[in-house]
């Protein structure tokens, strides 16, 4: 699947993740699944990591609820979430895979291993025959 994100949203994620580093930062993405098969991120939500650690993230459920209602008011679809890996690569960890329970979601991971060269990738994670399978999506910054 192709998925697009605005450069300004990419930069917002990057700047917030830098500010939160060494802790992980997180949030939600919302947008539309277009008829041409492209998933378009129209809005990025910066939410609180209630774990406040460099090794885990949990999105604040109260903020999540408010964000979901805001998406609905804007006629946007919840598309998934994003989080940062301050010191590890932009790919789902075992815990990320275990806790990825929405097979329709896109999971964006921003790596800050090289702070000046952030790497953002999008993944689709689903359970098949008891195992979680990961597929990288084609993320385009527009």
């Amino acid at each position: 699947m192709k998925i697009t994100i605005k450069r300004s949203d990419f930069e917002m994620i990057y700047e917030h993740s830098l500010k939160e580093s060494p802790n992980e930062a997180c949030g939600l993405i919302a947008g539309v699944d277009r008829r041409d098969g492209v998933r378009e991120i129209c809005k990025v939500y910066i939410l609180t990591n209630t774990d406040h650690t460099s090794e885990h993230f949990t999105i604040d459920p109260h903020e999540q609820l408010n964000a979901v209602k805001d998406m609905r008011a804007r006629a946007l679809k919840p598309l998934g979430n994003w989080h940062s890996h301050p010191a590890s690569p932009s790919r789902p960890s075992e815990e990320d895979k275990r806790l990825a329970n929405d097979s329709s979601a896109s999971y964006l991971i921003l790596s800050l291993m090289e702070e000046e060269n952030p790497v953002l990738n999008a993944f689709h994670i689903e359970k098949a025959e008891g195992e979680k399978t990961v597929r990288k999506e084609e993320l385009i910054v527009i």
Partner: protein
Amino acid sequence: MKITIAGEKKEVADGITVAALIEQENVETPEYVTVSVNEEFIDKGSFDSHALNEGDEVEFLYFMGGGRL
């Protein structure tokens, strides 16, 4: 009775519990779902006993988390 589920008005059985609604709505991986009713989060331990009322607003939210390892 009528309640609102994820912004959509639906007809459900009178006094349906949160647990029964989760089953009826075919919620994927319910063990990772948080439920709010009228913006209040319901304890997982109360899903079986929490009966819904006419006009309630229900949201199903997936736990969103992960880690480095």
